[in-house]
């Protein structure tokens, strides 16, 4: 039998779980300041995350999806992208978004059930959080198609989970990106679980990266807990896309260290041991070790930075807590550019029910 096509899937790791460099350092990583910046961003995200979970536990926030353990993947995506690129998140990529200028208060507003969270600071063209799993991948591909048709040197990046990589929309995005050679990067943040369903139950594929082959895309698997490898992979994928050479599927292998959301109890389905081992591979510790070995980080800096993060997060939390609920008419006021007659009467009725004069 003749062979008509052959493929390999590579795996990228630079900084191993013990903080050792195991592959060639990318250019950017030679500058310790860059690495410290990456570390600080990851750390900020984690501080924020802890605070958000605490708010939920004390009844001050609705259901919240933690990003614990995903910091390296998220920060690398954010740092690799330009402001004019478009980011299409799922629901836990706060790290990416903080890099892009989204404020924590907006994350909190969203999870307290307020649409204004989606009207966030940061690139106005970025998509808001997307609850229907993987649909954002096609929107990213559509954005990429718009860039291509308008000859703009921009790229679109979407994130899905291991679970989301099973969804038809993700495949459709891959198919579209391949068919039109789009500047689209489909990142799979494989944290091993989709709520209670393990990675092994999602697919028979050896890697999730290889799904890109179905559309003729570049495919890379990367240690998603290694911010250096992750950033290198993202930079290469984005450069490739920006040159007009097409899309990439990136599988970032990581682990969800938290429950799925604050409404979930992972102990029902997930072995404690697995979680314990995953903590050995988590992204911050290894980078901190490496930075300490380089002599650019230490316990004092760590403490100072964490305190600074805490203060910044507190400011955001306060801004969030002070944000009053929207008036009921807001549900009508942004539905269409111009409200059709049929909702005008309903709007008036809704206001009247509050005993307020309507206008």
């Amino acid at each position, binding site marked *: 039998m003749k062979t008509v096509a052959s493929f390999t899937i590579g795996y990228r790791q630079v900084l191993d779980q013990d903080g050792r460099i195991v592959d060639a350092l990318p250019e950017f990583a030679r500058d310790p300041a860059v690495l410290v910046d990456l570390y600080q961003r990851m750390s900020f995200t984690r501080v924020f995350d802890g605070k958000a979970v605490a708010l939920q536990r004390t009844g001050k926030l609705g259901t919240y999806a933690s990003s614990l353990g995903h910091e390296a993947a998220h920060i690398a995506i954010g740092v690799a992208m330009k402001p004019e690129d478009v980011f299409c998140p799922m629901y836990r990529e706060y790290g990416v978004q903080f890099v892009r200028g989204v404020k924590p208060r907006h994350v909190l507003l969203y999870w307290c059930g307020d*649409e204004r969270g989606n009207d966030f600071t940061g690139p106005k063209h970025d998509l808001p959080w997307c609850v229907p799993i993987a649909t954002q991948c096609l929107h990213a591909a559509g954005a990429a198609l718009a860039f291509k048709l308008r000859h703009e040197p921009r790229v679109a990046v979407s994130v899905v989970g291991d679970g989301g990589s099973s969804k038809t929309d993700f495949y459709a995005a891959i198919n579209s990106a391949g068919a039109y050679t789009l500047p689209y990067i489909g990142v799979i943040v494989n944290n091993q679980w989709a709520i209670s*369903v393990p990675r092994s139950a999602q697919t028979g594929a050896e890697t999730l990266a290889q799904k890109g082959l179905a559309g003729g895309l570049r495919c890379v698997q990367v240690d998603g807990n290694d911010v250096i490898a992750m950033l290198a992979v993202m930079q290469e994928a984005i450069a490739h896309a920006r040159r007009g050479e097409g899309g990439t599927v990136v599988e970032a292998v990581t682990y969800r260290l938290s429950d799925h959301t604050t409404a979930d109890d992972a102990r029902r389905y997930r072995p404690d041991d697995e979680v314990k081992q995953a903590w050995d591979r988590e992204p911050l510790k290894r980078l901190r070790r490496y930075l300490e070995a380089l002599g650019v980080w230490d316990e004092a800096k760590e403490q100072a930075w964490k305190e600074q993060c805490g203060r910044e997060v507190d400011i955001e939390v306060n801004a969030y807590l002070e944000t009053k609920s929207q008036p009921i008419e807001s549900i009508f006021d942004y539905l269409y550019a111009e409200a059709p007659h049929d909702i005008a009467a309903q709007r008036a009725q809704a206001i009247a029910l509050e005993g307020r004069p309507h206008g």
Partner: protein
Amino acid sequence: MAEITLIEAVTQALAYEIAHDPSVVVLGEDVGVNGGVFRATAGLHARFGSERVLDTPLDETAIAGLAVGMAFQGMKPVAEAQFDGFIYPMMDHIICHAARMRSRTRGRLHCPMVLRAPWGGGIRAPEHHSEAPEALFAHIPGLRVVIPSSPARAYGLLLAAIRDPDPVIFFEPKRIYRQYKEEVPDDGEALPLDVCFVLRDGSDVTLVTWGAHVKETLEAADALAKEGIYAEVIDVATVKPLDFDTIHESVQKTGRCVIVHEAARTGGIGAEIAAQLAEKAMFDLVAPVERVTGYDTPMPLFRLEMKYLPSVERILAAAKRTLAYR
């Protein structure tokens, strides 16, 4: 016999039918070891194993299409959409295949599947977790659409849905999953899939509703009773096929009808009920029909959701408007 909640009644019905009919298989996201995000399938995986209770990959299109394929081959899949807002990718397989296979093949094949989904708002859940899309399915010939409003009706109607040889969409009002308990004997007795339930007799106005809003509607009826106004309360339960006769009989008596539902007003099930009143009960009505519904906007995020959902106050106001006519 223990008293159980609505969601426990769902579990009880599923367990009963899995135990008694080897062709019944439950499938969906997280329905296995985890027992469902609401615990609707709690314990089923442990009891019946992974050949009867299947976690699926995360893809609603696949869940629907696989269920259709299994059903054509003689199984009785009970598929779950994890939330109402994730049911839309399933519509193609439901509309183009589940609903039509019997008719298309002149009876050679049929599609005995159930599609379950937690339904409706009011639990402070994230976006897309609080929708009421029943009208989209009720317009589709070949389907049945059921929304129980009590533990006993959840049990009896779900049994009927699974046993029905045709596809049934089964929406579970999640706001009242754990609202109250009642005794529900695990006797395998199904309820009919084509009747409305009259929950309260009355002579002055007919209040028609289904799902979680049975609660607010009964409360409105209570409040009216205090004023000496007697409302008849009807739980539609099976919105397709619609048992209009029961509604009509009531309106013949009361001359007034208020329809209450969570979904957006335009094109909701309330429209069909009001339309049939306009066709068949024009001369029975003494007052214009009233609809108390969700607004014609998407369900807002949860800070505003209770202002979106029909309140007792809105139901009362509508009832009183009808009572202004003599």
